């Protein structure tokens, strides 16, 4: 099988995010970056698919030139065969999807492309769907189990209220991966060393015949959540304080 996977470099899940002075971006100083968590499931699923069905894995990233470090350790060292890094910075999700679709088309011949269900920074939930639409392929979102047989696939997705839906379809398809689909493996030392020698093509939009086009949406502003109000101390001896606490829980917090 020829397997594609889309992976974005995002601030680490544990990073302390601060809104920048412009009110539209975040402070990047001191922030560590890694492959977005859901994209890690996509990479793992690509590797498992190759282990089962054979073939080749190519990853696609739209992002900064510095992404090569994370791609080597988080994609190539785990089992991705080649990486394509499109060094552009489109203004909206549609622009990113157009570049990814163009790069996938330029490379050609894919049976399946994996994406995360969303990225942990923007949480747009749009890329997988848009890429599938632009390519004219089948698409399943939030997949938690997956099987291939011939040119058919069967994907399980979790719906609300714990209901599971099984979707069947014909390849090629875009599969957006959800937590629970697999457990991400650790990289091994020899693979990290080999990853240094695997091909990583850094290209501009022109080289893949892509065009992000004018952004159709833009970020208005970012605002941090309101600061948590200070805790309130209840004075008095234990009996009085306990009574007051119960009153507050009932009358103010309305949790009793």
């Amino acid at each position, binding site marked *: 099988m020829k397997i594609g996977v889309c992976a974005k470099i995002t601030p*680490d*899940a*544990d990073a*302390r995010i601060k809104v920048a002075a412009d009110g539209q971006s975040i402070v990047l100083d*001191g922030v*560590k*970056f*890694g492959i977005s968590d859901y994209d890690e499931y996509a990479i793992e699923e690509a590797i498992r698919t190759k282990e089962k069905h054979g073939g080749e894995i190519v990853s696609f990233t739209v992002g900064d030139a510095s992404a090569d*470090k*994370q791609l*080597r*350790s*988080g994609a190539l*060292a785990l089992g991705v065969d080649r990486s394509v890094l499109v060094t552009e910075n489109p203004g909206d999700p549609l622009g990113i999807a157009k570049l990814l679709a163009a790069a996938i088309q330029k490379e050609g011949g894919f049976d399946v492309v994996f994406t995360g269900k969303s990225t942990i920074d923007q949480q747009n939930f749009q890329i997988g769907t848009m890429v599938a639409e632009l390519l004219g392929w089948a698409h399943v979102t939030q997949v938690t189990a997956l099987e291939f047989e011939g040119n058919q696939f069967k994907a399980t997705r979790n719906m609300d209220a714990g209901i599971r839906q099984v979707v069947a379809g014909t390849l090629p398809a875009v599969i957006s991966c959800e937590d629970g689909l697999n*457990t*991400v*493996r*650790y*990289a*091994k*030392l*020899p693979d*990290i*060393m080999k990853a*240094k020698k695997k091909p990583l093509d850094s290209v501009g939009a022109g080289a893949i015949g892509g065009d992000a086009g004018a952004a159709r949406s833009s970020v208005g502003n970012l605002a941090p959540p309101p600061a948590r109000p200070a805790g309130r101390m209840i004075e008095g*001896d*234990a009996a009085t304080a306990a009574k007051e606490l119960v009153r507050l829980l009932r009358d103010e917090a309305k949790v009793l």
Partner: protein
Amino acid sequence: MRPITEPDVLAGYLTDASNIAGRADGLFRPTTTEEVAEIVREANRTKTPLTVTAGRTSTTAAAVPMGGWLLSTERLNAIEQIGHSTATAQAGVFLGDFQDAIEATGRFYPPDPTSRRDCTLGASIATNASGARSFKYGPTRPWVESLEVVLANGEIVHADRNTPIPCHWPIPQWAEPEVKTAAGYVPTKRMLDVFIGQEGTLGILTRATVRLTDLPAEVLGFVVFFPTRQAALAFVDRARSAQRADPEGALSPRCLEYLDRHCLDLARERVGDVPDAAVAALFCEQEVSLDEETHLAAWWEALEACGALADDTLITTDDAGRENLHAFRHAIPAGINEQVVRNGMPKVGTDLSVPDAALSTIMEAYDHAPIRHVLFGHIGDNHLHLNLLPTTPDELARAKAFYDELAAQAVALGGSISAEHGIGKTKRDHLRTMVGDGVIEQFRRLKSHLDPNWILGRGNVIEPPL
């Protein structure tokens, strides 16, 4: 100031990670050094024992009061200054919070007890705590720049690296073992040192200034597996020599943490990725001082030469991955705790360190543990924690007796009976085994001189007078 005496409130302060229960008649939660001094004066005047309680993660009952008053440092928690070479905070700040604030400025305070999220800066100094990174950076002691201390008479003193000891203080004269150690009062010429590792018995730390260094830009994390223990020890030897020869070299781990085969079984159950042939593993970190490839090549060569299962080595090259690798390591304490809960019996955990040459001898002694056990820890410092997991009162008694034997053997090998957890109330006998009656007597003289009424940390380090 009046102490809090409500039993419900006090109940939250009567034990620590030793699970030994104490008793107290009152609790103070001061916010300033002056308030601390006032409380201490009152305790001294009324000869009321006063135990400092902080994060209560002590494993030796050091924070457990045996009557008298408790002084909690929880409200002495302001971070006051973070500069380029030093940072200052009140003693009760959580160590992890202090380190986060320092690292946000690109600076680094290395001491990293595993409990750093739950333990305080003051207590980590009062116990001279250490951690995995102590292999490269040493314990807390060398990182302390100055201290503000309230003495047992209520006097507030300041000690920095140049403050000499008042000539009438009877500082004990004895030879500490030449290993990682946090046992007993140090033979020193600096006043600062007297208050590091004294377990709340000689003074109350209210404020500390610590030294900072460069925050390493990148750190590689490894879990290396070995088909035999000998192979693991061969690698420890080689990595340690290389690190000592050049602390910034291509092979210069900042930590070397051992996991025995019982640990690997726990990891197999919980996280996977453990090769079948592995009977031992090392969790290591390497700061990137040269380029990454040079480090990787040096590690690869050393691992192959020592007979490691080099192909199976897990590695992370970024922070996010390192967190994942920590999950691997943390599966072990989690597994042990689960076992302890299931057994319904406390575990018996050792904290012995020995000289390099005695490492394999003490490890062979650990093999003779009479009951189920797990061995892991800071092998770079020849400091492993043997955790004995009794299931019956009889096994508990055998585990304790075995621990006593091991402590005596570690002393005979030139080691320390406590490398990092301190003496508290549970290891006074082991301390006596290590230093002998004469030195205990010297400790007693220093204690009596600085605290004639024996109010501070009563019962820690040495037995109180009747």
